[in-house]
């Protein structure tokens, strides 16, 4: 059975655990080497946001089935201060300064689906999915 997992993220080393778990699940599901790198990259970006802005949270890695298609789901959750303006946070350079395409908008482009819900005081949940083709 594919190894779905929840990784608690409070510090930098937890990001590695989440990446490794994501990479392992992606490999089990049959994602190729390049796609596994992109998945690990997206996990890095969302997990790094948890450490940097919320202090603690979790990254949940799960298998997806839609009809005959398989995918990977990555959900990053925290109960931090939340984001005032989600639309602004999804614009390039909002949290990353000079690095166009890094951060949340960067992760969005690496995945097939990307949703974010957040509000002041409610914490932030980022849901990303990538399908095997």
């Amino acid at each position, binding site marked *: 059975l594919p190894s779905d997992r929840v990784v608690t993220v409070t510090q930098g*080393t937890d*990001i*590695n*655990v989440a*990446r*490794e778990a994501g*990479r392992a699940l992606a490999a089990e599901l049959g994602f190729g*080497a*390049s796609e596994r*790198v*992109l998945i*690990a*990259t997206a996990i*890095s*970006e969302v997990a790094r946001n948890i450490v940097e802005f919320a202090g603690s949270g979790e990254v949940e890695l799960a298998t997806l089935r839609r009809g005959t298609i398989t995918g990977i789901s990555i959900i990053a959750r925290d109960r931090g201060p939340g984001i005032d303006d989600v639309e602004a946070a999804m614009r*390039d350079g909002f949290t*990353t*300064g*000079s*690095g*166009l*395409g*890094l951060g949340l*908008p*960067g*992760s969005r*482009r*690496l995945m097939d689906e990307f949703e974010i819900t957040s509000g002041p005081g409610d914490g932030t949940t980022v849901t990303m999915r990538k399908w095997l083709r």
Partner: protein
Amino acid sequence: MTQEGFAQRYARILSEYASNGDEGILSQAYELAREAITQGRGLLDLAEVHRLAIEQPAIMAMDQLRVVAVLTECLGAFEMTHRGYREANLTLQGLNRELLRSNSELSVFAHAVGHDLQQPLYTIDLYTQLLGRRFQGKLDPKADELISRMSVTAKHMSEMLAGLLSFARSGGGGEPITRVDIESVFDQVLLDLAVTVSEKNARVTHGSLPTIYTRRLHLTQILQNLISNALKFTPGTPPIVHVSAERGARDWTISVADNGIGIDPADRDRIFKVFERVKSEHDYPGVGIGLAVCRQVVEGEGGRIWFDSRVGAGSTFHFTLPVQHDETPGPRGW
């Protein structure tokens, strides 16, 4: 982080990962690439540090799949920003199309206003002149004067419309950026102003004028307006006008100095506005559009225009034109 620092950290990460295959090390590779990107380093910088690392015999002897994994991990970060630029480029293309369309609509409008209003105005002027000729001396003297004023005003309005047309054209852009020898533009402008120059016994000189990347027509328009103003606003004594250029870090500053009447500091803000006149039209003929055209053209090119002046002691107008990328050595790595 210098390129050397980048190379050292990359080589250390490569050898550590090759010996233990730890995810934490791979994560460091990713963070290193991310840092390199925010510093503006390119893919070729990464290629260089990778080449330097694998030249070491110790690393060459290591597990090559792991060596490739570290490189791929770094490339992941570059891939992410690459997708960002691709998307930003698409957005910009859309915005640019919109901008071009709105610009061309605006220019059509300004052209129509400038052009279509000329004809009825011409007719008004014609009837006024006919009226004057037909009834000269037959009405009271006051009427003769009013008729003559009407004609003068109609002519003035016609000049203003012509100015508006040239103002609309100056916003048109379209001309590509090419190598332009400023000195040849200077020569051409002087040829156009030859009559005024000889009438006023003016001396128009220039310092060392370089070849820069810009739009020739725009530069011509700016220099033509500034030099012609310098000649116009120097009454009495023969005008002495000097054009010079200086290279800064990010732009060229081109200056036109004269020994004219100077500008009152109080007029500083008005002087660049359309149809604003600081001096009476009687003493200095013109419609008050030259400097507005200069400002529009200069700002359209991403530059600034300003002046230094003392009343009675002459003025120097300065404007900047950005140095284009082709004029500088390429950014590192590319």
